[in-house]
């Protein structure tokens, strides 16, 4: 699902399918990297809390909004088979 995405350490993202490029901040890069490496979306909140200084409510809200944003930008859109 993520084979088309090339994400660099400093948050530059290239989507090979669309040719679009993006910038992500540190926490955004962290989350997308988890997804690319196979993490399930439901596990992202815990991973965020483990690595960043953030409370649970904020992490839950921000992960939800970030996932929505990825879908909205069609970064995580599933290919229509």
């Amino acid at each position, binding site marked *: 699902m993520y084979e088309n995405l090339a994400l660099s350490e400093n948050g530059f993202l290239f989507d090979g399918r669309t040719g679009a490029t993006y910038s992500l901040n540190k926490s955004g890069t962290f989350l997308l990297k988890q997804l690319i490496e196979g993490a399930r979306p439901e596990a992202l909140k815990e991973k965020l809390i483990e690595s960043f*200084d953030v409370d649970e409510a904020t992490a839950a809200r921000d992960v939800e909004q970030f996932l929505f944003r990825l879908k909205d930008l069609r970064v995580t859109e599933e290919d229509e088979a």
Partner: protein
Amino acid sequence: MTKQAYEKPTIIKHTGGLANKFGRGISRRTLSRIDGIPVTSLIEEHGSPLFVFSEHRIRQRYREAYRAFSLRYPKVQFSWSYKTNYLDAICRIYHDEGSWAEVVSEMEYEMARRLGIPGDKILFNGPYKPKPALARALDEGAKVHLDHYEELYQAEQIAKEHGKKYPVSIRVNMDTGIHPRWDRFGFNYDNGEALDAALRLHTGGHLYLDGLHCHIGTFILEPDAYRQAASKLAALAKEVRNKTGMPISYIDVGGGFASRSTLHEQYAPGTDSSPPIDDYAEAVTSALLEAGFGADEMPTLMLETGRALIDDAGFMLTRVVGNKRLADGRRAMVIDAGVNVLFTSFWYRHDVLPVIDRGGMLEETVVYGPLCMNIDIVRPSVHLPPLEVDDALVIRPVGAYNVTQWMQFIRLRPKVVLIGTEGQVDLIREAETVDTIKHLEKTPPRLSARSADE
């Protein structure tokens, strides 16, 4: 393992090339203090939104302007343009600096009189001066600037009724090479109407010409337009002098110098593109000096500068009330100050500066006010770092026209404070309450008998 500092996860799509988004020219700026006073403490004490004026800047700008003109010309008099900002405390600072008052209605005239300004230090402009107001102004020795023939006849009539001969001035409009040309006010120079009015005024026997006035527009970025205006008024003054034998006592070039604000359509910020006050001063005074008035007949140079004196002395403190993502992907933000109190947002690209920047990516953001109205946009696009609800922002420069053109619409108007030159913070206008709005209303008894919950 120590955890990393957190910042809300963000992803921004690049449009139109990377350089546009993250290229030079987009800098991270914050503003945490005004005249040394922390913005957060001002908000803690007075709430938000909050208008803040700096007495230091008001006095500093006035002195710079006065110096620029008085170094170049022997007789200079500024008159504070009331409509630009007629809060009593603000007007008093200008009067304290030596400014007279420039008013455009009987309401503003009364405001100036209540502050103790004598009639002969009030310039009365505007296309409508009701007869009682005109009579009072003439009687109190105000500098009345006639706008059209009907007003000239009315002034003549009043002089007859009072059995007096009054000095009056005329407003003149003209081509100064700029657009739009404000030809709806006063008598036209280029077609000879202004000379005609000046001569007509003398022949009636009840009035005589005291001065010539023009106000060629507002936010004029071309100092040369003022050179043309001043030289046309000087030429007119000399012609009237030749034809009537009477010199005029002043030439008033009005207001209109650009402040350091930035128009929406301007590319560079106003701090870079607005001419310094010295350029305007050089243009006006050189035209007057070159006109060749006799040493004893040099007219006083009057100025009615508004926005250029006060704009950057005014700040709006506001807070974030919500973050949004629009359907087209753009980031948006709702703040607690809208176009109801920032009327000038329609014309100017105000600076919107966070009080603190916790880092994170800058992203192009639409800044909306709190009104439930589509037009309530404070900045259509500005690069801001991530901000949370309740984070404070400073919007500037907002000193000109906002506290006079603000609307009582949907929300009540907020407090206004003045930071004194010693760092004192004084409330100069209380926040409105529902009573402020409702006390003028009357409900017919037949409608007040029944209440909604019956």
